[in-house]
């Protein structure tokens, strides 16, 4: 009997220790590691045929799939400047939007809220185990616990950069998107990371060059 109990204790102890030692991937990520950078482009576009570009001076806001106006915070300005610098580094020339640029660039902040409801009433039934109504001076009474709900909300924000072909707009009668980039993850609005984030987008888009 003693042996059986020992076996049980040994088993449960080992199981508890080992399962508790499991590595949760999310707990082993830094903010930098949490971010992902996605880029895509029009495979028919010849990026070497473009030479000039212009970029919108403010950032478009899209909240829950609805237009939310424009913004020009210090962070927005820094991000736009970083995109300008990266384009110039790739050989493109920055021109005013009135000087017929070949390319147009725009930055967008996309924000989505997700909400849900969680029920808290389950623990109400345990009150009597901790404080019998006798504790309050009401022996023989019982607790009444109505259904309460908690609402939680999660916000997720992403940064997008889009490039449009203005050079061929007249012939196609449309401003065709030829490059898009998206940044998601923790800390994307950290000002000290602006240059690094923009550079990552351009590093993985080697086709963005004039020659």
């Amino acid at each position, binding site marked *: *009997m*003693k*042996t*059986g109990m*020992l*076996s*049980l*204790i*040994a*088993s449960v*102890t*080992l*199981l508890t*220790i*080992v*399962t508790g*030692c*499991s*590595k*949760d*991937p*999310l707990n*082993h*990520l830094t903010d930098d*590691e*949490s*971010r*992902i*950078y*996605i*880029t*895509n*482009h029009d*495979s028919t576009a010849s990026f070497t045929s473009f030479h000039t570009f212009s970029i919108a001076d403010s950032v478009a806001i899209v909240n829950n799939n609805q237009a939310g106006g424009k913004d020009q915070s210090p962070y927005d300005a820094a991000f736009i400047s970083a995109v300008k610098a990266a384009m110039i580094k790739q050989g493109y020339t920055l021109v005013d939007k009135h000087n017929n640029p070949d390319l147009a660039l725009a930055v967008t902040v996309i924000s989505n809220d997700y909400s849900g409801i969680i029920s808290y009433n389950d623990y109400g039934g345990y009150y009597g185990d901790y404080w019998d109504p006798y504790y309050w001076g009401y022996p023989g009474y019982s607790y009444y616990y109505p259904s309460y709900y908690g609402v939680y909300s999660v916000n997720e924000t992403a940064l997008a950069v889009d490039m449009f072909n203005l050079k061929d707009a007249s012939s196609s009668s449309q401003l065709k998107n030829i490059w898009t980039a998206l940044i*998601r*993850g*923790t800390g994307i609005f950290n000002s000290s990371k602006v240059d690094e984030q923009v550079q*990552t987008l351009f*590093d*993985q*888009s080697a086709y963005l060059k004039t020659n």
Partner: protein
Amino acid sequence: MKTIKIFLVFAICAFFISSAKAQSGVTKVEVGYSASFPTSSFKDFIGDASYRGVDLRIMHGINDKLSVGFGTGFQDFYQKYPRQVYKLSDGSDISAVVSNSVQTVPLLARVQYNFVPGNRVQPFVGAGVGGNMVLYRQYLGEFGDSKNKFAFQAQPTAGIYFPFREAGSTGLTLSGYYNIIPFRYNGSTNLNSFGVSLGISLPTRSY
């Protein structure tokens, strides 16, 4: 380290309560620490060995050589790959730190054959067949994809049992085994791995 200390405490306790009896009719619990090494296509998903595992077997002796029973346990596999650019099927490029994580919980019917019962060193072979509760997760940055599945599992085993006393029912068990787990998802075809386990065998009651 903590696991090893606790294991040693149980091993010492077990030594003092062990007794010299044959295995026939004896039901034993074998609990041990396990490490596992991914092989085959599982190695492409997680190349790192897992040192976070436990084995638990309950075996009943049909006779001195043959025992049947049940096996379970837990193994945690994890690997984080440095940031890299991946090409996706839609033509997009994604730069991400990829974290792969797999937890397995086998539920196996087992049979074991002991070649030389009564010896101080008792080699054995065995096999387990059943299923495995698999929790499979892949994260690109903080964005994850998961798949829970009850997969088939077979587990050929070989090992050595060292009784604390000659022909005793209590002792140490060192075993090696191969986990065969077909698992088709997201490019993976299996979660095969080689495992080793060092455990203690205890009868469920004193003899």
